[in-house]
């Protein structure tokens, strides 16, 4: 069960509720049946436990610190057994594909029409599955045409990686939207009791997207680009999320050749530069002429990339590059002598950062 549903349940029950994992042995030890099923429940004084999902030896259990009435227990048990608490839905694979394709077409039409703020209409069968907090991933495959796998094949791989309640929505040729539960963010944490801080969300999203890219490369077969956005309530903002992720991949591929995982919060400057008319960009590069050769030397480029990634902190950059601080200072001084730009000064750092970004684009022309 994802975080937003847990919060809703918590409010309804007016008691702390969490989703935990237990082994079957632990369940039996606590007084439960030897072969537990979704819907089984236990009341241990003021602690209510309800099995929401079973998978081999592991149980997904809802734990509420409350004493429930028999009717409340039966209702929750019924929900876990037959409702959407434990299952993604009982539609067949081909029916699910049809439903997701229909939604994908609507998303595409909305983006084409510039209607980025549209909410998902209730007429879509999948509407009821799009109320919970979900993480949007956009996948663009670069595989050769004859190797494009079926929807079912890709969905199976993604279910194994994310969870059963993920959704795969085909958009265009070789482009898919993947919605994973926001519960994954908590699962990235080393200690499940840890609450994920807002600042850590992006870090967790990056690691999930990087892992997803690696998994797809190894297990699905082929090169691809993955973009990830912050969790959304899909009914409210799915069109916007898809448009933004698509733009993110476009900018990432344009400005950061060789990178395959892209985040919207890391391409603000690129978005701005992309919007500048070509003649203005060319003029800027011309005015900086004589300094562009800086970016042909891989050592200088990697040094500057690391320097900017570490917020222009000399000590941290040296650590990251595994070089002595003095070696880094020597490289920066050399750059200052050769290019007349001292990246330790704020204004020069901006110019060099812009030059590096634009050079990557103009170099390929």
């Amino acid at each position, binding site marked *: 069960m994802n975080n937003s549903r847990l919060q809703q349940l918590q409010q309804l029950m007016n008691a702390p509720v969490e989703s935990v994992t237990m082994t079957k042995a632990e369940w039996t030890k606590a007084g439960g049946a030897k072969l537990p099923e979704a819907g089984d429940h236990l009341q241990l004084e003021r602690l209510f436990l309800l099995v929401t999902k079973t998978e081999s030896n592991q149980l997904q259990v809802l734990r509420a610190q409350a004493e429930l009435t028999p009717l409340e227990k039966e209702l929750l048990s019924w929900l876990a057994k037959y409702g959407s608490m434990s299952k993604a839905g009982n539609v067949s694979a081909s029916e699910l594909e049809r439903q997701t394709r229909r939604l994908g077409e609507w998303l595409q039409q909305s983006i084409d029409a510039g209607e980025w703020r549209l909410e998902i209409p209730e007429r879509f069968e999948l509407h009821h599955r799009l109320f919970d907090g979900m993480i949007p991933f956009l996948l663009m495959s670069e595989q*050769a045409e004859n190797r494009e796998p079926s929807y079912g094949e890709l969905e199976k791989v993604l279910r194994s990686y994310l969870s059963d309640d993920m959704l795969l929505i085909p958009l265009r040729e070789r482009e898919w939207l993947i919605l994973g539960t926001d519960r994954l963010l908590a699962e990235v944490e080393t200690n499940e009791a840890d609450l994920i801080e807002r600042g850590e969300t992006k870090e967790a999203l990056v690691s999930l997207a990087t892992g997803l890219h690696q998994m797809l490369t190894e*297990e699905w077969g082929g090169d691809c680009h993955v973009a990830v956005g912050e969790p959304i309530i899909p009914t409210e903002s799915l069109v916007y999320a898809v448009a933004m992720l698509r733009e993110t991949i476009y900018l990432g591929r344009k400005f950061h050749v060789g990178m395959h995982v892209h985040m919207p919060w890391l391409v603000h400057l690129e978005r701005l530069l992309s919007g500048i008319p070509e003649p203005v960009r060319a003029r800027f590069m011309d005015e900086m002429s004589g300094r562009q050769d800086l970016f042909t030397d891989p050592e200088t480029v990697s040094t500057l990339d690391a320097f900017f990634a570490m917020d222009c902190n000399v000590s941290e950059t040296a650590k990251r590059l595994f070089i002595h601080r003095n070696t880094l200072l020597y490289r920066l001084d050399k750059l200052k002598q050769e290019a007349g730009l001292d990246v330790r000064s704020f204004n020069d750092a901006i110019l060099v950062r812009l030059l590096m970004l634009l050079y990557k684009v103009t170099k390929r022309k």
Partner: protein
Amino acid sequence: MAGVRLEHVYKKYPGSDKASVTDFNLDIQDKEFLVLVGPSGCGKSTTLRMIAGLEEISEGKLYIGDRVVNDVAPKDRDIAMVFQSYALYPHMNVYQNMAFGLKLRKFRKDEIDRRVREAARTLEIEHLLDRKPKALSGGQRQRVALGRAIVREPQVFLMDEPLSNLDAKLRTQMRANISKLMKRLETTCIYVTHDQTEAMTMGDRIVVMKDGFIQQAATPDELYNHPVNLFVAGFIGAPAMNFITGQLTEEGGAVRFKATGFNVVIPAGKAQLLRDKGYIGREMIIGIRPEDLHEEPVFIEASPNSVISASIEVSENLGHEMFLYLNGLGKDNVIARVDGRSQLQEGQNIKLAVDMNKIHLFDKDTELNILEA
């Protein structure tokens, strides 16, 4: 297990008139540890990615075992990859990370468990199986990434700069670990690096690449002692081989190499080869490894025909050895590697004897090693 064969393989990217990899021919033996090495942009990673199936092959054939795999998807090539970024699955623990690929391929549970635990034991990460990636150090993550590849028991391992995210100490340690592991697993491994130390210490055979072309494919010993051209000679070895451009002359039956600060006699066998190939009177490049310049009096006395004089501009004493940066020889600094206990000082004028049996001679135009051609 299987060998890998590349036959006339080319990689051309759309819109580029130059091939990134040109006419790559190589037969990689079963169980061989092959290293692709070269500077940035030489085509080594592209070659590996073509073997992995992550890049299309523009022309030529790729065999894994006896099967042509040009059109086989990466997941069906029976290979396992370990890349520089080695991203782990962050929401799964170490056990689940290692088991994931097998689970997806519907292996039996007990078989998955056996393979994961065996690989964990080999990599000494058994105690980490319950941990999430976030709780692991860089070295531990790297071992998990290796573990994920090992459990697959693939025909071929492909590794692309797998150690470059680690600090120097850990890199040295992991280098030895990977070498040991691959020997134990007896599986073909193709390893890409730009680090020649990694290449020399790990590879059964090394392929040196430049600008998309194979420069030389040979054992580490062969590459070091018999480089086929100026590029390989300069790329392999640290400090790099010294190159001095000069003139070959014949005086009184002896063939001499003359350049600024140099007037040395070429040994008879090599001299005859130079005569036969018509190099007398022509400009050429002599290559001398830093350790083939000797300051020991015994060596100098025994080699009167190859003594040179120079002044020490900078000396770097590493304890067990000392690097001398010498002035007055050819156009650039010449580096000598001498005993760390030498009492030599910066600014001092010294005499050195060149071990003429170990010199290399390169054609100035073709840059080929004349003695190896």
